[in-house]
């Protein structure tokens, strides 16, 4: 917001509230402008949603609240709402002449903090500042920011001057603060709380936490999901409904964005684009991860969990087909990839895969790539390679070739996810960062090795994190650089990790190093192991203990099938 928390605006609050009004109806725009001006707000009007978004993006801190009509020609009001919520995290009020319950519900689901019916009365507009204030309070709770609290206090002190009395009295603020303290204390228990950033102890959505969230969402059913239900299911005492609500909102946006991106990339040659990501949670219910028939001979022995990267974009799991090529199994990802979910800044992330199973990193936990997965641009794991039969060809002797053909879409580490889970600012999993493992197709990162895997400590946390996808194939992006490991892996399983997961590794395609997010839950892995790998005839018998976490081992990802002479079940 303002540069200082003692800005004049704060002192005058709610006067001077910066409102952006978006409505394609010029008559309403004029009326609303006048009404808001009368409330002493600073009004900016816009008749196109696109313009509004641009304005918001240009002036990142230029507005306090957005009021938007639901029906607009260039963009659906709900979409705008999502964008604003995710990108700018501003409160958005929806308006419409249509007051049907379903519409209102949709608005709320998309994150609207209020839904006004037209004709809008001035008294309704008078109180919109409460949404801004409420958000501030919540931020104050989460972020433990002195500035925030000061601002709130200032606002509160002015409330005494209000004619209507104050909505929040000092006692409430005290209560708020107390709650905040409690929450902060709880934060310590959270994983992924970076001690160095304790100042900003927002709710850190650790992998574990996020996994719980995703599980809850999946359990409820994405369409019926709601913060309260999720919260109840998650059973995390210190988590508040608001935390869940905002997380859910972002999640939805992320998924839908991912879907869009994937759809866009479809033209890049993705065949099976059937991407329906209904704003799902990370828990995708992909239809089939791996085709058992293909994974006939895999005999993977994972010590841990297999990591499945789901190529959200393609929803396809690559599986090795008889010819020893990895084909992609269409995954019916109901939910969109989570990749975009978290980090809208990861521009490069095109399709993200989500690790569906926790990794069991045992040995090579190398370094979790310090890739800050949150920085790593997602590889373009776009959708399934054009060549259907081939694409993910993890050919026995030409693994890299296979990889090549396998478009990046495979491995999509869900950077976002991890990013998300660790909080926006958190760096990616360093070794010591619990649960920060994320498979991220980080380009040229983790050159050194394979260690993008999660470090063992985190595996517990990670294993908890179930992406909730049962059959998700994750396209793994093989890390390129795990030379040594690769070999190992390949030897091990004889199949590139990719094949295990049925992902095409785009290893030599300049794969990025993947930061594996230890998401996988063991069931998934088990499933994989038995079916897929079996079919694949892969031999996971790796000697490498280090390959215990096969997935995690980048080498796995590095589809160096040839190195190991991976044999794909034909």
């Amino acid at each position: 917001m303002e540069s200082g928390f003692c800005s004049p605006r704060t002192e005058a609050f709610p006067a001077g509230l910066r409102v952006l009004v978006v409505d394609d109806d010029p008559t309403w725009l004029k009326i609303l402008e006048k009404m808001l001006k009368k409330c002493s707000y600073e009004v900016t009007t816009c008749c196109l949603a696109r313009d509004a978004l641009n304005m918001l993006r240009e002036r990142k801190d230029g507005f306090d609240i957005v009021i938007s009509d639901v029906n607009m020609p260039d963009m659906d009001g709900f979409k705008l709402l999502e964008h604003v919520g995710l990108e700018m995290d501003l409160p958005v009020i929806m308006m419409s002449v249509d007051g049907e319950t379903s519409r209102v519900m949709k608005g709320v689901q998309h994150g609207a903090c209020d839904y006004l019916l037209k004709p809008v009365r001035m008294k309704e507009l008078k109180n919109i500042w409460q949404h801004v204030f409420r958000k501030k309070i919540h931020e104050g709770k989460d972020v433990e920011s002195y500035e925030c609290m000061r601002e709130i206090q200032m606002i509160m002190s002015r409330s005494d001057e209000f004619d209507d009395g104050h909505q929040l009295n000092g006692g409430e603020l005290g209560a708020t603060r107390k709650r905040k303290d409690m929450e902060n204390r709880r934060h310590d228990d959270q994983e992924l709380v970076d001690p160095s950033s304790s100042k900003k102890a927002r709710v850190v959505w650790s992998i574990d936490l996020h996994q719980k969230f995703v599980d809850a969402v999946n359990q409820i059913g994405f369409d019926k999901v709601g913060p309260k239900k999720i919260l109840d299911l998650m059973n995390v005492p210190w988590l508040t409904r608001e935390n869940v609500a905002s997380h859910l909102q972002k999640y939805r946006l992320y998924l839908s964005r991912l879907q869009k991106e994937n759809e866009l990339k479809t033209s890049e040659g993705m065949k099976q684009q059937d991407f329906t990501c209904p704003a799902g949670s990370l828990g995708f219910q992909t239809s089939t991860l791996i085709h058992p028939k293909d994974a006939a001979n895999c005999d993977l022995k994972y010590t841990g969990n297999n990591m499945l990267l789901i190529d959200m974009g393609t929803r396809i799991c690559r599986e090795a087909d008889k010819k020893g090529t990895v084909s992609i199994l269409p995954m019916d990802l109901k939910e969109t990839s989570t990749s975009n979910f978290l980090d809208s800044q990861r521009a490069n992330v095109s399709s993200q895969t989500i690790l569906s199973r926790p990794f069991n990193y045992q040995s090579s936990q190398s370094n979790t790539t310090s890739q800050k997965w949150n920085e790593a641009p997602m590889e373009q794991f776009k959708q399934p390679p054009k060549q259907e039969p081939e694409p993910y060809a993890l050919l026995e002797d030409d693994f890299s070739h296979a990889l090549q053909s396998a478009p990046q879409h495979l491995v999509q580490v869900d950077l976002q996810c991890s990013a998300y889970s660790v909080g926006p600012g958190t760096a990616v999993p360093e070794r010591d960062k619990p649960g920060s493992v994320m498979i991220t197709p980080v380009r040229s990162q983790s050159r050194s090795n394979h260690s993008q895997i999660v470090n063992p400590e985190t595996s517990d946390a990670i294993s908890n994190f179930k992406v909730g996808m049962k059959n998700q194939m994750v396209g793994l992006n093989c890390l390129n650089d795990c030379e040594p490991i690769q070999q190992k892996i390949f030897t091990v399983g004889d199949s590139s990790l990719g094949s295990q997961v049925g992902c095409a590794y785009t290893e030599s395609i300049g794969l990025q190093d993947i930061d594996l997010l230890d998401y996988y839950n063991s069931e998934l892995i088990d499933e994989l192991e038995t079916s897929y790998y079996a079919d694949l005839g892969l031999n996971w018998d790796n000697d490498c203990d280090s390959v215990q976490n096969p997935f995690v081992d980048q080498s796995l990802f590095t589809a160096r099938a040839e190195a190991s002479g991976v044999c794909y079940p034909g």
Partner: protein
Amino acid sequence: MERTQQHRQVAHMRQSLFDQGLLDEQFVQLEELQDDANPNFVEEVVTLFYRDSARLVLNIDQALDKTPLDFSKLDSYMHQFKGSASSIGAKKVKGECTLFREYCKAGNGEGCMKTFQQLKKDYAVLRKKLETYFQLARQVGPVETACRRK
């Protein structure tokens, strides 16, 4: 006094618009927004409404001429129109919009057309009346146009 009589006339005219169900509370809201900064606010808004909604009316007319009727499109146009009409408090017109939309939902083309004809009539009548009203009000002076003070 002449002036008083004029004032009374204006007030009476205004009241009748409400009594006849042509206008609703929203119109009063607009009047309340009128102030020194925007002394002709209400008139400006009404003018803007009629200008903007003209194209909607045209769209609907054209859509009604097509066969077969695209009800969802018609409904969508009417939804917009209704939103606009609500902005000035055009009560009767709004009611017709609702009726029209119901016919759309029922797929009743005939009903749609009839309703729309009526709607256009009322829309035009309101315009005329408001124009007269504003003219008179301007003559009399702004004080009388709003019966409530801000």
